[in-house]
């Protein structure tokens, strides 16, 4: 394209990537690993004993990102729980995996089950799952879980939120739910023209297509690092029927929130 001053610039389209035309590109894609799901030995024997190789589960709670996982860690996983599985995706030959989500190249997401309520399964996804892997990651997770109610917690930057009037108090929460979800949501619906992408969208799409009741709570945060307000924005979610019994809004949760914020601050000393 020629410009006003006469130089010729390459034109890029916001919709179409010129690389996609190159047929050789398909052979050059980086071979990052496809998602792998591993259940604990106890769960594997439970699956063998079950009729359809599925885990009995009335609620699947999925937390994606630092603030949602921090919230679930403090308010839902505050009592005893057991590790029942792990999903690893996107590992390349150069990555090291610590299995404790302590390395920046960690790509594992852990699945837990509450000891007091073994019908509630919690998946903490603090590692970033790429949009390309999200479909298969979701299929793996749902391969052994009965069609139950799904609650997804996710977060993004408030600058991603599009509205005619920017009068929301940040942080705030909006929701999207599948058409078979009948309960009353704990916050307003996400209005047009906002969209959700990557893993939260992949999970919700899976639930919609397979008629699974599911709700996604998306928090819009203004802080890059997690803070108490970012985690507490999810508190209304605890009014959900299934979570009412297990959640604990108490001193233990407050301590956990404070600890997570401190841990995060130590790692990011730039703006003390």
């Amino acid at each position, binding site marked *: 394209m020629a410009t006003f001053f006469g130089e010729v610039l390459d034109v890029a*389209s916001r919709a179409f*990537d010129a690389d*996609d035309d190159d047929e050789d590109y*398909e052979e050059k894609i980086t071979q990052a690993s496809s998602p792998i799901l591993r259940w604990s030995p106890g769960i594997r024997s439970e699956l063998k004993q079950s009729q359809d190789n599925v885990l009995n589960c009335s609620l699947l709670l999925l937390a994606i990102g630092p603030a949602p996982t921090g919230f679930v860690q403090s308010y839902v996983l505050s009592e005893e729980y057991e590790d029942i599985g792990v999903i690893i995706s996107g590992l390349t030959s150069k990555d090291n995996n610590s299995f404790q989500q302590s390395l920046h190249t960690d790509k594992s997401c852990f699945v837990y089950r509450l000891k007091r309520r073994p019908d509630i399964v919690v998946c903490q996804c603090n590692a970033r799952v790429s949009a390309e892997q999200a*479909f298969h990651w979701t299929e793996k997770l749902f391969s052994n879980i009965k069609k139950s109610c799904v609650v997804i917690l996710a977060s993004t930057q408030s600058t991603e939120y*599009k509205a005619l009037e920017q009068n929301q108090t940040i942080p705030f929460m909006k929701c999207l739910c599948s*058409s078979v979800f009948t309960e009353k949501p704990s916050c307003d619906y996400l209005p047009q023209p906002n*969209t959700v992408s990557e893993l939260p969208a992949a999970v919700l799409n899976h639930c919609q297509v397979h008629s699974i009741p599911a709700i996604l709570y998306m928090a819009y945060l203004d802080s890059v690092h997690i803070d108490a307000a970012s985690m507490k924005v999810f508190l209304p979610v605890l009014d959900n029927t299934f979570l009412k019994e297990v959640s604990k809004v108490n001193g233990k949760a407050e301590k956990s929130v404070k600890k997570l914020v401190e841990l995060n601050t130590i790692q990011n000393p730039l703006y003390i």
Partner: protein
Amino acid sequence: MYVGCPNTPNDFKGYTLVLPAVSVGNVGQLSVDLLVTTLGLVRVGYLHSDCVLPVCGNDAFSVGKDTQGSLVTTTEVYYSEEKKIVVVQQRAPHVKGKQNEYCTSLIEWIQSYQFDKVILLTSSYSHERLDSQIQGGRLRYLATTALQQTCEDTLQNELKWLPLERRESVWGKSVGDSKQEDIPEQAKDVFIPGGGIAKRLFVQGCKENIPLAVLLVFCAEGNNVPDALTLTSSLNQWLNLLPNQSAGTPLQQWKMPNSWNLLFGSTYDQTIY
């Protein structure tokens, strides 16, 4: 790939299928938005595939300001029994490297559901036009042999549409490109820069003898709503979708969905100045 909604029809034999390609200016997708909103098409299923990136949102086709929370997923299928038309809307680009796989799955779906004809809506970079294409109409079409047998007369003589000019590769056939030999004669030298999967689907459509037409407009990135109106109005001239061939400009004929609000982002906070 295709998953139908519960309690919806599953027989589309003889229907016309309209698909968008993710192309420059998103013109095909905008055009499908106009079709679904104006004709009041009903969702009948999903194209659940790992070849498209995931996205979801609320109330894309709702009317008015109420947020009803009806979820919209990445690729959805809408239909109208009255107009005998099935329309696919795709809201996200393809996963890199999976376009061929997507085209193959699409062709299999088209063949299994026995659509009467398939129309792919797309666009092409206007700066790549030949000198002869710079003047005159911006609409072009391509049709496979299978479709030419039934519709060539309508397209060329009645509607007087121009077929897309063929463009021989600058590098010719001397650069050891064995893939060129696989391409059927009717798909040789097709050049649709910025057209997304249009060329791939057309080549596969020719090989599999699908009655497929590719309809495109030349455009550049920017406000592509007028381009979408042009494309949709042209499609309407062929398929006669709007009742009574309502008079008026394309802007008056076609209704725009709520998802077109804030097309260029939200307003900024005035207090920062």
